[in-house]
């Protein structure tokens, strides 16, 4: 039972017909998931997408929603990702702090310039990604760490996808816990362009399945079951990264389950059969800029864990549903 596709005829006709015009490359029209025009670089943008924002926009409404017995996915998973710090994540903060203070052979460490335990860096993670004048590019946390480690400390092995870099980013983000995210995408400039490119990538349909990130992270998919999990809408999610993502581990990955934003994007690309970007590369940085700017106005909450491991939320909903 062979599929009869008249390929030979189709190929011959078209290639012969258009040979002379192959000089100019036709402008390729990509498939985009609907919703690109409704996006704004602020967490309240979620109102255009899912009607959950009113439940998790601040502490008070979240407490009210929690006591009303709403399920986690109805609160974009902010109930435990905001109100409960992750015990597992805290176990790894110590290692991140240690890395920050460990000196290289010349006695130089991150602390030598940024103050013991990174005092001066408190709050900076909430304003990443930023445009780096010297490097003439937009940099996210892990990339800035790689460049600093390479140039200032001569450490060549602290690249984006390594354990030291990830745990350092995790530690630095925890220094900004509670800070309001403020990625400067309003003034025209490289960060705003990166935001717009990232938005287009987020909505572009790619890969073997021809999915876009938005296929699952915008309603009606978000909130519904994708096997055992329910995707969230992307607004405000960047405020919890780097996140403790047990039990997921990418192959050959011993990062004790800490996922930076781009590590999470890579993991999702792998799971959705899309070509995996390289962490720190331009497209991945643009997607991270888009996601972090979509969390503007929301406080960072690190360390938290990806899965809701305490079962009180189930008790709440059982009590409410049995009333």
């Amino acid at each position, binding site marked *: 039972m062979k599929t009869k596709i008249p390929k030979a005829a189709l190929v011959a006709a078209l290639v012969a017909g258009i040979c002379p015009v192959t000089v100019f490359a036709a402008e390729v029209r990509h498939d985009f998931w609907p919703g690109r025009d409704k996006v704004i670089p602020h967490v309240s943008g979620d109102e255009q997408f899912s009607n959950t924002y009113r439940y998790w926009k601040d502490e008070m409404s979240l407490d009210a929603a929690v006591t009303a017995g709403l399920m986690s996915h109805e609160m974009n998973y902010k109930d435990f990702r905001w109100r409960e710090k992750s*015990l*597992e994540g*805290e*176990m790894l903060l*110590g290692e991140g702090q240690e890395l920050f203070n460990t000196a290289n052979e010349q006695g130089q460490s991150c602390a030598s310039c940024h103050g013991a335990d990174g005092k001066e860096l408190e709050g900076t993670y909430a304003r990443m990604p930023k445009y780096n004048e010297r490097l003439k590019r937009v940099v996210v946390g892990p990339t800035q760490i790689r460049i600093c480690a390479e140039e200032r400390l001569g450490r060549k092995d602290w690249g984006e996808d390594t354990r030291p870099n990830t745990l350092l980013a995790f530690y630095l983000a925890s220094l900004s816990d509670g800070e309001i995210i403020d990625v400067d995408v309003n003034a025209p400039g490289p960060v705003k362009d990166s935001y717009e490119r990232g938005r287009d990538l987020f909505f572009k349909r790619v890969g073997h399945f021809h999915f876009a990130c938005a296929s699952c992270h915008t309603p009606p998919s978000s909130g519904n079951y994708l096997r055992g999990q329910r995707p969230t809408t992307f607004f405000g999610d960047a405020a919890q990264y780097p996140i403790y993502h*047990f*039990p997921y581990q990418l192959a050959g990955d011993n990062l004790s389950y800490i996922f930076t934003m781009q590590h999470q994007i890579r993991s999702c690309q792998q799971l959705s059969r899309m070509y995996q970007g390289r962490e720190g590369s331009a497209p991945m940085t643009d997607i991270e800029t888009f996601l972090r700017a979509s969390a503007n106005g929301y406080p960072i909450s690190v360390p938290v864990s990806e899965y809701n*491991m*305490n079962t009180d939320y189930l008790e709440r909903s059982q009590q409410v549903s049995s009333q």
Partner: protein
Amino acid sequence: MSTTIKVRAMVSADIATVKAIINHPMTVERLDKATGKVVPAHFIEEVVFSHNGEELLVASCGQAISKNPYFSFKFSGARSGDTLGVIWRDNQGKQDRDEFQIR
């Protein structure tokens, strides 16, 4: 201060709630495809929690307990400042112990 045990213990209205995490691979017995040999299971067999030295809970574990095992329990008659002792032992003779303040 051990680095394998992390505890969060809080008292409210005379009931103390303890949440504990132990850093351990908890691997099940599996066949290593590369070498074809069976890799034996490596998991925590027993965790003992004590309050001011008095034994509270003895948890015996099998291979079905998740990696970095988590235990939680509640008990009465505790005051903030008491000490909570944790000892664990696995099936390969490794063990660790530590004490924590109940907040």
